[in-house]
């Protein structure tokens, strides 16, 4: 009997050794880094990933060749982008990727996506706006903080914070002269006005419930879209930036949550998602009868317009749990490419070619920078 037990023990020891060996085969460790060489012109696509999954990613699409490079941040730097990448802006040869639930803005080299710097000290950053009238300053909004952070662009450090008078959930920004306009989205109905010369909140404009998006057209008119709430429908709003008065109000069809306002290359056509994808002239007196792209069973999630060609890019999040796709359309609405990117593609950023340094669709007459920030067409 003892012999049999000893035999059993020997067998167990062999089994344990095998299991130990199996354990030693585990594959976990540093992420591979590789050189990335991005074309001179193209489109950065920011995929948010899933909340608390740390699976945001950055892709780059070359419209000339139709080639897409995915996860370029991870591949170039050997680290994850983080949790919920919110937006990207190019400024003076640097790309600023705002990663909301990681509390960071990563500064990357747009030629190879290598990290050059980072901005920390914000809990839940959303959008960054570089001031036209002060190249050393940028404003950074936050989902939870009732203050806008003022970033020193030469050191990537936070210089000060601007009190927003209890308005949390500051979002996108556009600039008209010395004033920056910012929409307050969550449980709010205000467009706030900040004087960039004093870094102080100076005014507010009341619109509808939860303004989600903000752009400035070629005529100096600010556009926003509001979600609406009990008894109040969703709507588009046009505000004169100079007088801060609401000029037009366009009620939208029931049960549509408008978002992703963007402008074409000339800044005279407004695009937005409200279940369908819509396009209208900035001078129109009424909404168009037909959408630019009707709802086709897809989850339209992101939208941008090429500032040089006015081609339209529409993101489909599909089921929010797989790599989304971006459809590329001609200005006439013909689909010419389908691009598979990361999870929940929600923001875009054009990298303009050297031959077209003035191409922009935002802050007309105020900016000479070459890129567009998705949904914000604002300053760069």
């Amino acid at each position, binding site marked *: *009997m003892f012999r*049999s037990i000893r035999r059993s023990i020997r067998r*167990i020891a062999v089994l*344990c050794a095998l*299991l*130990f060996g*199996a*354990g030693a085969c*585990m594959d*976990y*460790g*540093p*992420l591979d880094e590789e050189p990335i060489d991005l074309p001179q012109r193209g489109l950065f696509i920011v995929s948010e*990933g*899933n909340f*608390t*999954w*740390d*699976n945001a*990613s950055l892709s780059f699409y070359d419209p000339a060749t139709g080639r897409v490079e995915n996860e370029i941040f*991870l591949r170039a730097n050997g*680290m*994850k982008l*983080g*949790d919920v990448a919110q937006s990207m802006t190019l400024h003076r040869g640097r790309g600023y990727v705002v990663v*909301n*639930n*990681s*509390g*960071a803005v990563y500064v990357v080299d747009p030629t190879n996506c290598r*990290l*050059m*710097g980072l901005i*920390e000290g914000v*809990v839940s950053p959303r959008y960054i706006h570089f001031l036209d009238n002060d190249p050393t300053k940028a404003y950074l909004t*936050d989902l*939870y903080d009732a203050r806008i*952070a003022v970033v020193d662009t*030469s*050191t*990537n*450090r936070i210089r000060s914070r601007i009190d927003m008078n*209890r308005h*949390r959930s500051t979002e996108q920004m556009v600039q008209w002269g010395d004033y920056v306009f910012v929409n307050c989205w*969550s*449980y*709010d109905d205000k467009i706030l006005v900040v004087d960039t010369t004093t870094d102080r909140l100076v005014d507010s404009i009341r619109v509808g419930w939860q303004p989600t998006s903000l752009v400035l057209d070629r005529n100096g008119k600010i556009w926003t879209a509001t979600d609406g709430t009990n008894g109040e429908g969703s709507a588009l709003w046009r505000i004169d930036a100079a007088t801060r008065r609401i000029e037009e109000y366009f009620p939208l069809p029931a049960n549509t949550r408008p978002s992703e306002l963007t402008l074409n290359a000339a800044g005279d056509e407004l695009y937005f998602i409200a279940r369908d994808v819509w396009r209208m002239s900035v001078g129109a007196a009424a909404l168009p009868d037909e959408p630019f792209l009707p709802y*086709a*069973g*897809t989850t339209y999630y992101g939208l941008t317009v090429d500032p040089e060609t006015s081609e339209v890019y529409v993101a*489909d*999040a*599909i*089921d*929010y*749990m*797989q*790599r989304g*796709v971006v459809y590329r359309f001609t200005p006439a609405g013909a689909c010419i490419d389908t691009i598979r990117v990361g999870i*929940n593609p929600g923001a875009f950023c054009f990298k303009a070619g050297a031959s077209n340094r003035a191409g922009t669709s935002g802050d007309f007459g105020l900016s000479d920078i070459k890129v567009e920030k998705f949904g914000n067409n604002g300053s760069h």
Partner: protein
Amino acid sequence: MRLLLLLVSLLLCPLIVFGQGDSVARTVAIEQVAVAGVRPMKELGVQRTELDSALLRENISSSLADALTGGSTLFIKSHGRATLSTASFRGTAPSHTQVTWNRMRVNSPMLGQVDFSTIPSYFIDEATIYHGASSVGVTGGGLGGAIALETRAPAEEGVGLRYVQGVGSFTTFDEYARVTYAGRRWSSSTRLLCSTSENDFRYRNYNTKAFDVDADGRIVGSSYPLQRNRNGAFRDLHAMQEFYASTHAGDRFSIAAWYMDSHRGLALLSADRNTDRQKKNTQDERTLRAVASWERLYGGLKAAARGGYSFTDLRYVMQADPDGGGTMIAMTDARSRLHTLFAQAEVEHTIGEKWLLTAEATIHQHRVHSGDLSVVDQTTGLRADTLYRQARFELSAFAAARWRPVERLGVAANIRWELYGRSASAPIPALFVDWLLSRRGEVTLKASAARNYRFPTLNDLYFRPGGNKNLRPEKGWTWDAGAECTLRGPGRSLHASVTAFRSHIDDWILWVGSPKTGIYTPVNLRRVESYGAETKFAASASAGRDWRLALEGHYAWTRSINRGDKFSPADESVGRQLVYIPEHSAALNARLSWRRWTLAYKWTFYSERYTMTSNDLGVLGRVKPYFMSDLSLEKSLVFRRADLSLKGCIYNLLNEEYESVLSRPMPRLHASIFIGITPKFQRR
């Protein structure tokens, strides 16, 4: 590695003194072995796994999630130590696993799932896992299965006391005490458990980097930081009081009340650049559960009635201090209060030796009050109305007829019907057959099939924002078939089983939504087909009075496939494995006892789990497979006035770096030591 060798050496050193003998009286643990041949009528055709009591009593810091990981084929999705741990059967979702405690369902009526990390294994005396169709006999809604947890009256007469203290890595302290009294007519048990830990284990963070930055903010160097788990500290308190009484007339009464007070930090994500002074997530939970029951036998009729109540106060707070100046402001303050009343009546009637008839009616009345108290409506300056208040009445009626016409054949038919608020399920039938193929080896064939439903939870329907009042219940069919055998010999036994299963679930409820807006909505999206096989074995052998070896193994192959319609033409999820369902999972437990020494080894394995519905294999698309090894050594010491036990445990024996959930690094090698004392009072 040197630390590992040192700890292994310390654990194994006592083996050197084996030869010195142990002359004092000893107790030998008797393995629980089901007596086959005379199969209980209630188990005809039922696929069940009884969790080994040795796993439940492994150590006082173990949760039921730890015990289930090692003792079953269930997939435990754990976000870390003392953090959300859910269980799923056969490729289904955690909300498809129904859990009862002393027959009262304890799934959250808001979320539908159970956090097994909040159930200390020392507070459970019996845990039985009912796979697939077999769950219909326990409760409704178990599309994957059900887990029945029970407490039991103390076995030994007289006064008993057991006190265990544990000290572990990461400033972890555990204390457990149980006081029992058992007389002729009544008994009492009081259990207390307190666990605290800084839980600040170190890990190499491969998901982000630490940077060297010059005065102009330019990055001049970077490396993967060796950092501590941030904001993972926890403090859990549990208290349980039980009374059991019986009368001369044959009535048996019991009451069990369990109170939990838990304060847990939710660790920051590994790629979060905030410090724990800038951002803090905490979860506080106070839960009281109480069940009273009465049972009596009237000849061939057994009647039982139970009543219970549970209350949960759950608070999740996210605080932030962007300046790091020390003033935290609540960004999210989600508060939920849940009340549940429970009542159950049950009769069982035995007719001869061939029939067992059962009827049961169970009601749960829930009342929920939930919302985020931190949100201020800026248009009014008042707190935003994010709260929902809902009450729901749930009735589940059940009847079963079990028939054994001949000794070898058993047939059971169950039917269940459920009412949720104003909605009712169609009748839920289940059929079970088992056939004793061979007395030699006690080879038994089993098969079962059932239809099942699961109603949307209160959050599914009413959560603000995002709840969907138009959801349909999930419904499905499931069947399984398998064989089991038992071999016995002098001093040894072997029990093995293998089961194949298949199920279809329609209208699978999935929360979808936008991280950008933070608004998620549940929708009836998927049609899921799952199939696979489960196998398990338990073997034991003993030699003389000194040596004893017990082995237990589990393996499951699970395919859980999305058979739904495409969301859009670009959808690549159809025909793919569901996220976070491992195709292969396995566990092995080995326990070698020699006199008063016990050496135990636990090994678990999960194959890769996809994190995208399209099953991409990139860094962001999967959690890599992992093997985990734990080792423990225990020594019992017997003295005239008390028994002592000393136990050392090493977790993650091979010092592996791994993640169980995307971007949630787990602790590397760590250890605990436990000292237990059981005073010997004068027995009655």
